[in-house]
């Protein structure tokens, strides 16, 4: 890179504020970290309307993007998720399967990823345009969708710009089942091998995922790094307070509820716990977050939540990222419900631990998140997903919340969580990438103010 100017990062993320999709907090924190580290940052993402109309959005999330970051919204068409019948062609209304088959073939012709493939062309054009006007020194593409990597591969081919593939999920591996999604010689397998083969670094969110990819691509193992999700900032200590003995306990869940979240199992366990534990019997369970991946609530999950109302379980809708701290302050015990096995950690586990509150985990046995929770002094795991095991964990957590000296316990728990702060996860990579692009090391005070003299914004939170 030329000297005398800050290094320029082109960051590609389909899900970026105001999206409320999984991984958006990782994207937000990453661009803010690069900006604070002294990089010029340009983001390529999709228009706001995609989130407003389909996935759901959190408009206040945009205010947390460092104002120095240049966000460019690249047109993206998502016909499969289009519910407005006025935009449908006649063939889709009359022959939906024919339409879907044709559409899928068109998607795959552009890039081997159904639904997102055609974004490749707009993305590559945008990357080249950015590079023409403001030379790019590094591309970081966060997946999924996997098509995001094409901006990096294109600039690498045309101008030798190095790129990083940030696998916040995985492509070839189905992280919930642990099975391969596609074979190495399939179009998707070949595309992955090609994009990873040219990457300067490959980021994975946990060690089991790094191991799997290192086994699949042994010649690239030395470029693979674990960059955990972490949490962005400690909750203010004053948020923690001992539960009022005269008030019932408040158990809380905060996060997106999908069909892989063991919500029905939790409700059964909650019902089982109530007769045996006076504390749970009088307690409330409050569920916050989206029901499903999209703005429209998932009907199956809605039914589970509605049916549980008579047992003191209430659903109170999604929470803006800016209200997350206040939401945690209203809980006495946190409910960590997560599906998936040895490759799934989630992002919210780190945020949960940062509160210092007792955590009841209801997760699939062998889930990678349990490894993260191990050592957290207020962790109360359900041994399995049976109602009896979940009931025991709930009762233990209730006793913990009521135990004398819970402030000291919370302080110890928060101290344990400190190792998972996101800045500590990203710091080594920022230094290595500065070295890679030939930029001088960042000054010790990397939290540079913006042009108006305002301090860099801080963020808090993870996927919900």
């Amino acid at each position, binding site marked *: 890179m030329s000297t005398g100017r800050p290094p320029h990062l082109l960051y590609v993320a389909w899900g970026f504020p105001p999206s409320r999709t999984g991984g958006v907090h990782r994207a937000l924190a990453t661009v803010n970290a690069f900006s604070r580290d002294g990089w010029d940052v340009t983001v390529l993402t999709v228009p706001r309307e995609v989130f407003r109309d389909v996935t759901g959005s959190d408009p206040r999330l945009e205010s947390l993007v460092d104002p120095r970051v240049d966000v460019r919204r690249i047109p993206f068409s998502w016909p499969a998720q289009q519910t407005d*019948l006025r935009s449908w062609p006649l063939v889709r209304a*009359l022959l*939906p*399967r024919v339409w879907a088959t044709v559409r899928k073939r068109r998607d795959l012709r552009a890039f081997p990823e159904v639904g997102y493939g055609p974004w490749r062309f707009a993305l590559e054009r945008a990357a080249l345009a950015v590079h023409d006007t403001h030379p790019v020194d590094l591309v970081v593409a966060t997946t999924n969708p996997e098509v995001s990597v094409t901006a990096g591969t294109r600039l690498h081919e045309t101008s030798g710009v190095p790129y990083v593939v940030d696998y916040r999920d995985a492509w070839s591996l189905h992280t919930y089942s642990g099975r391969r999604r596609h074979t190495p010689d399939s179009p998707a397998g070949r595309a992955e091998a090609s994009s990873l083969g040219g990457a300067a670094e490959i980021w994975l969110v946990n060690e089991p995922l790094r191991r799997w990819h290192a086994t699949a691509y042994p010649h690239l193992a030395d470029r693979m790094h674990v960059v955990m999700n972490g949490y962005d900032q400690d909750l203010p200590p004053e948020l923690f307070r001992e539960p009022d003995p005269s008030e019932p306990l408040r158990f809380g869940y905060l996060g997106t509820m999908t069909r892989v979240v063991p919500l029905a199992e939790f409700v059964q366990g909650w019902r089982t716990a109530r007769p045996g534990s006076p504390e749970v019997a009088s307690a409330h369970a409050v569920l916050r977050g989206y029901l499903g991946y999209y703005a429209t*609530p998932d009907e199956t999950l809605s039914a589970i939540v509605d049916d549980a109302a008579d047992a003191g379980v209430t659903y109170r809708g999604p929470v803006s990222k800016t209200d997350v701290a206040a939401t945690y302050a209203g809980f006495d015990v946190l409910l960590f419900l997560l599906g998936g096995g040895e490759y799934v950690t989630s992002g919210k586990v780190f945020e949960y631990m940062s509160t210092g509150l007792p955590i009841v985990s209801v997760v699939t046995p062998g889930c990678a998140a349990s490894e993260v929770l191990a050592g957290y002094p207020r962790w109360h795991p359900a041994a399995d997903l049976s109602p009896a095991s979940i009931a025991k964990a709930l009762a233990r957590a209730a006793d913990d919340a009521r135990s004398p000296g819970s402030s000291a316990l919370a302080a110890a728990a928060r101290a344990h969580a400190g190792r998972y702060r996101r800045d500590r996860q990203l710091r080594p990579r920022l230094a290595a990438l500065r070295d890679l692009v030939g930029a001088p090391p960042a000054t010790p005070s990397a939290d540079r103010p913006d042009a108006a003299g305002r301090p860099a914004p801080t963020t808090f939170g993870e996927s919900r």
Partner: protein
Amino acid sequence: MTAGSVVLVSLGATPPGEALLAGVHRLQETGHRVTLISRTPPVRDLAETLDLRVPVGRPVLLGAGGQQRISKIVMDPHRLPGATQILLDGTTRRLVTSADVLVAVDAAALPATWLAARVNRRAIAVNGLPAALARLDR
């Protein structure tokens, strides 16, 4: 959410069920009048909740499942006939042309709702009741 007339269209063989109930309640709480045009009678709770239900089409299926195949393409004989019948019948035509929101609540109702949206150009026309609620909330 401004109060108006919502027309739900169901042309599938499965009776419109309780999955619609919460959405219908929500619409009515905000002053909407909810009408169901359907081939099969809705389940009792839903029937008691609706402001109006208008039957259309033939309630008995033809052949095996009422479906016909042309090569790999599966055709439901109720889809297109049902769509045209809704637009030709005086009662249902009045309902769809005066509606503020048209909702296909099953896949078989998509052609009918799509065609109705061509006749009634000012109505919101969507696939699925949750999508209608989201549009009205916007």
